[in-house]
């Protein structure tokens, strides 16, 4: 009926995935991402897709592994504790060089934690999570519109680089409702000669595997994979720069923390403090270059996070500790207020 629709963040991911050609969803319900699974349960049977509620998160990620081997677009979604359960499977998918989308609508932790929003799975998402040397392309939406747009992008990047991608959201963005312009129908545009699609007696068998009996060969796959990662770090960094041109204080924040921070930056500007915001859209690859460039000009950085301070390590590394980096954070399901971020900006600017 209309161009725009009003959606929950979780629903926007589901619909965008369907529009990106995903017809295979495997999951297990967990608050606060359940609407995503519920949406898939309703839509997939009507469009000839598969929605399967597995008996556990571990089953779900291994079903993803299976479908990914055939080259089809496939996804799973969960929230923090469920994502921990999926880590072994994610490592296998990365080790077998397969594209897939994993969605984490984070909640407070550690342990069973709580059901309120969090960003405390940053280390898990960007530094591995599972075992072995690997990365995920990690995208961090800050609006319901981006939930949709970055879902489509995540499928494209996963296909292009033959690796799993993660949408790292939080409970608030998952639950909040905003108007969305849904992305157009799309699908995979790269060839997948490695996919298990049946030989038709015309080609040798393809083998999808993460087991290597010869260490020299395993080393070679690691080197090759990291060469690919290096290219991704060069070409696929995405971030938003907001009022940083003349900034004295640079806030670094992603997702819901960036929305709060944007309000704080505007409030600081009203007080005459030149504040700006770098909002990473990819947290792996991390936007090191813009932060390094700002390090020569600003008094310092404020890392705003819904965790005990995880991204702050990447901010410090990116600016080579040239300038102080302070932390403005809440944890366990709480969100920093614009006032708290403003206070941190004032402090970094040299007090009142």
């Amino acid at each position, binding site marked *: *009926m*209309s161009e*725009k*629709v*009003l*959606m*929950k963040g979780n*629903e926007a991911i589901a*619909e965008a995935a369907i529009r990106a050609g995903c017809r295979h969803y495997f999951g297990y319900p967990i*608050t*606060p991402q359940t*609407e995503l699974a*519920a*949406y898939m349960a*309703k839509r997939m049977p009507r469009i000839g897709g598969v929605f399967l509620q597995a008996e556990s998160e571990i089953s779900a990620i291994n079903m993803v592994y299976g479908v990914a081997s055939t080259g089809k677009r496939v996804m799973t979604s969960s929230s923090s504790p469920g994502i921990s359960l999926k880590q072994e499977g994610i490592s296998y998918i990365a080790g077998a060089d397969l594209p897939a989308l994993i969605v984490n609508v984070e909640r*407070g932790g550690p342990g069973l*934690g*709580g*059901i*309120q929003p969090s960003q405390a799975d940053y280390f898990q998402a960007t530094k591995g999570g599972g075992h072995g040397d690997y990365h995920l392309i990690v995208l961090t939406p800050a609006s319901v519109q981006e939930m949709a747009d970055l879902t489509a992008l995540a499928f494209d990047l996963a296909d292009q680089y033959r690796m799993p991608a993660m949408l790292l959201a939080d*409970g*608030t963005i998952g*639950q*909040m*409702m*905003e*108007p969305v312009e*849904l992305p157009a129908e799309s699908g995979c545009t790269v060839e997948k000669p490695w996919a298990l699609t049946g030989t038709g007696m015309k080609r040798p068998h393809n083998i999808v595997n993460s087991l290597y009996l010869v260490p020299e060969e395993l080393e070679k796959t690691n080197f090759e994979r990291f060469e690919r990662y290096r290219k991704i770090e060069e070409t696929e960094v995405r971030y938003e720069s907001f009022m940083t041109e003349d900034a004295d204080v640079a806030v670094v924040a992603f997702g*819901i923390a960036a*929305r*709060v921070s944007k*309000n704080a930056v505007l409030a600081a500007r009203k007080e005459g403090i030149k504040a700006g915001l770098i909002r990473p859209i990819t947290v792996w690859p991390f936007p090191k270059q813009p932060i390094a460039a700002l390090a020569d000009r600003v008094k310092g950085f404020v890392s705003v996070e819904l965790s005990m301070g995880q991204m702050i390590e990447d901010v410090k590394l990116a600016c080579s500790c040239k300038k102080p980096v302070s932390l403005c954070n809440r944890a366990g*399901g709480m*969100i920093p*207020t*614009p006032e708290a971020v403003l206070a941190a900006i004032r402090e970094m600017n040299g007090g009142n």
Partner: protein
Amino acid sequence: METKRVTLFCGHYGSGKTNLAVNYAMRLRAQGLPVSLADVDIVNPYFRSKDSEEALASMGIEVISLPFANTNVDLPSLPSEVYGLVERRDRYAVLDVGGDDRGAYALGRFASYILRENDFEMLYVVNFYRPLTQTAAEALEVMREIEAVCAIPFTGIVNNSNLGDETKGADVRKTDPEAQKLCALAGLPLKMTAVSDRCAADFPPGAVFPLHLQKKPF
């Protein structure tokens, strides 16, 4: 709209039931009626009528909510006071019900009391800008699913079509024909069209039910 003693707001999740329930309770209270608002949403973990508890309490509206609402306890349980609420003839009750059939399951246990008292309005809240209820036919499907699980028939329809903060009066008007179609399909009257008080001025006085919405910090 004639005021029944018990008013229930049901519909697809995200259709705006909580905002309607809160604003409707406030309107009844402003008319000087004794009002209780019960949050019986066992589905939605965030954004619920309990968020408005302070404002409601300050107006003298009794708020009955789930014992663990807005905490980390993801335990769907219903407070016993709801039974009393549907039977107490000295108070008006507004029920904020969870979305879809899953949310309406919670009503099943109160259905026999509500039907026996026979002084209720069961309102179907619809937003035609929600992706799964964009047409009257789709909205009707969700309606029937809700009725099937809670065993209470709908008595009216509330058109709450909106695009969140971006809503213009014209966006609401554009959905009028779809709302009329739904009324015809369901054989029910359109009880009200609800719009945010930010664009209520686009309509003649009294034509719409203005909603005062909570402000978000981000």
